């Protein structure tokens, strides 16, 4: 268990995101059908299939890899999640410029940039029942662990758990951003699809760091 992630590890992360999101495509669309338009799984699967073909065939350095991943998601996912996940990866790439190894401090900086990008792009806040409700708890958990000087692996396991809890916490929320917000109270009682895929992305990162 290394204390940094190199380009190969990050490529494994992106590949694992692709595997898991494609496998869970039907489940994600089902969640979206309940409070949205039922395409979230298809959107993510389409995007990560393209990432696998265009980016993972010849992955570059960390910054290039995440930039290419973000650009590819941006140009293939469409909908709300395309720009948001695209922004997440591209802003992370910006923070990693020139790096060959990513330690916990740099990862926190990168994820912080990425999540901030998502927040600005979507103009959403914690509690709006969106992917931010998975991403923000993961980031906070990482920051707390970083301050405590924790190791990369355990910090990411904790972040994955925080994302998963944040995702479940969307169930009793009323959506106030995205398509689900049109439903008002009717969005109560359903888990947010974007939060679910965001939690899967964090869990995949924890898995490659384990």
């Amino acid at each position, binding site marked *: 268990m290394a204390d940094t992630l190199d380009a190969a590890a990050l490529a494994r992360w992106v590949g694992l995101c692709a595997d898991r999101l494609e496998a869970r495509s039907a489940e994600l669309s089902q969640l979206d059908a309940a409070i949205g338009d039922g395409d979230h799984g298809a959107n993510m699967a389409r995007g990560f299939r393209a990432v696998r073909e265009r980016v993972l065939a010849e992955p570059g350095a960390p910054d290039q890899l995440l930039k290419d991943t973000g650009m590819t998601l*941006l140009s293939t996912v*469409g*909908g*709300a999640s395309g720009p948001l996940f695209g922004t997440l990866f591209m802003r992370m790439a910006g923070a990693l410029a020139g790096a060959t190894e990513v330690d916990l401090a740099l990862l926190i900086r990168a994820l912080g940039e990425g999540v901030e990008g998502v927040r600005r792009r979507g103009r959403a806040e914690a509690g709006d029942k969106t992917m931010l409700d998975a991403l923000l708890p993961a980031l906070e958990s990482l920051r707390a662990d970083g301050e405590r000087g924790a190791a990369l692996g355990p910090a990411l396991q904790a972040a994955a758990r925080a994302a998963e809890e944040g995702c479940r916490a969307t169930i009793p929320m009323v959506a*106030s951003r995205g*398509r689900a917000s049109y439903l008002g109270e009717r969005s109560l009682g359903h888990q947010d699809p974007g939060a679910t895929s965001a939690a899967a992305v964090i869990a995949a990162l924890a898995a490659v760091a384990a």
Partner: protein
Amino acid sequence: MKKLINDPERLVAESLEGFALAHHDLVEVHLAPDYVVRRGAPVGDKVALLSGGGSGHEPLHAGYVGRGMLDGACPGPVFTSPTPDQILACTRRVDGGRGVVHVVKNYTGDVMNFEIAAELAGAEGIRVEPVVIDDDVAVQDSTYTAGRRGVGATVLAERLAGARAEEGGSLEEVAGIVRRVNAEARSMGMALTSCVVPSAGRPTFDLGPEEMEVGIGIHGEPGRRRLPLEPADRIVDMLMDPVLDDLPFRSGDRVLVLCNGMGGTPLIELYVVMRAVGRVLSDRGMGLALSLVGNHITSLEMAGCSVTLLRLDPELERLWDAPLHTPALRWGV
């Protein structure tokens, strides 16, 4: 799923190919990335007007590309917004140097994808002026939602701003017409049946044989209220009351009425709706100046209708009548 298609994955591309075949005299169709532009774009010394959004709303948007309306349209997958690279490629293609107005329906995905495209185009030195359409009064509380949705006013804005661009209006003037139309128009829709998204293969929502869904958008998303089916006149009242109260429209206003079919409702019924709208207007002392009845902004095969009212002024009335030549709407040429 009963549809005249070959494969849900190829639906949008194949439909665009058929569209290109039928309308090659008016438009050019580019595939991968998918966009439609006026033949010979950029056309003349004018501001360009571009719109886009998920497919499944035909004739919106590609059917409105042509003289006096759009210069370019970017169709996404069914009910899914187009991507920034698509919008960027189309923006480059239609820009003739005087800038490009982006007409964006207010859906989170559309807004963000157009926003990124506008940033990228701006970085390339193309002046882009985005305007968001949000005329759907069914979404009531915009502080706790993504805001009102863009529906029927989109068609009207595209036509009227397109006419302003055609007569030489500046980027600000053309965008100003889109904003004015959005400010002066209100819409509301209802469904008798759900639609079936091809990749899903089953109805997006279930409606009983005696039920209707009032306050729907255009993506098969369920509306605000499920109610027992009513006669057309009562349904029109349910749509017109919130539309009239919201702006509010007033006695003496001259309006344009769009009686829009959602895709699966026959014209004979849309004219029954038109009749009911006319009665409400005359009861309220309003003047029916212009009307458009038909399938203009649809939700695949959904049965149902929406009503859009636009308060007119002399400039908008003049622009409406200006020459128009697109695959779906044509007059004066």
